[in-house]
């Protein structure tokens, strides 16, 4: 496996920040959702953003051993 470039690290950091914020916004939105369709969408979205966040985090962790 090749080491991450500084550019890749910067982008992964940005995407992690985006997934984190999207998850928070979806949680906040759930408190205002009246309709079950909206509730269900947001519920699904929160878990999706959590999963994408952990995917990105895993990508960083996998490059730990080759970083120097």
């Amino acid at each position, binding site marked *: *496996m*090749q080491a*991450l*470039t500084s*550019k*890749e690290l910067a*982008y*992964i950091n*940005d*995407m992690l920040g*985006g*997934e984190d*914020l*999207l998850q928070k*916004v*979806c949680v*906040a*939105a759930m408190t*205002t*959702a*009246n*309709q*079950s*369709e*909206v509730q*269900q*969408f947001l519920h*699904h*979205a929160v878990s*999706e953003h959590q999963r*994408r966040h952990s*995917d*990105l985090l895993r*990508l960083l962790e*996998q490059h730990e051993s080759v970083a120097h």
Partner: protein
Amino acid sequence: MQPQAMGAQLQEQDYMNEILLFLKHQVLEYATAVMEASSIQVRQTMQRLLNETLTEQADCYQLMARQGWYPPAPTANRQDLLKSIQQHRQDAQKNMQIARNVGIGMQNQTQIGSWQQQVPAWQTGQMRQQQGNQQSQQNVQQMQQPWQAAQPWQYTQNWQDPSQQFNWQQQNQSRQPWQ
């Protein structure tokens, strides 16, 4: 009337608008991350997350449209459409003539079909490289996740992340109410 409760607080619709905007932004960021990736592994992960985010954005938009929170865009004028078709057809014909002058596009349909079945010359280098690397990488590949095992040639052909296939199938079978 609840003037105070309504106040500056965000309502259901405002939040969905914000999420939709946010998803659009995230899609563009992922697309840039895909293009700027140096390693195939990073690129594949970013591309998968890009596709997932695009799907979520579409779901979000469809949900909002059904609620009437996102009025459909005005339809294009028929005259404008016909003008565009005519213009781009002319452009295509000019380009075909230019290509014919350098010997491209002389084949008939069956010849084009047989050409597509062959491995393009620019891919053979990568294929050979991939075969050469296979033996030395075999030990490493056993340690890797399924999506790490992809080779450049797989990656250029709309390669689907095997670790995600099960999930996708599941999602296809049971569509959620908002989809």
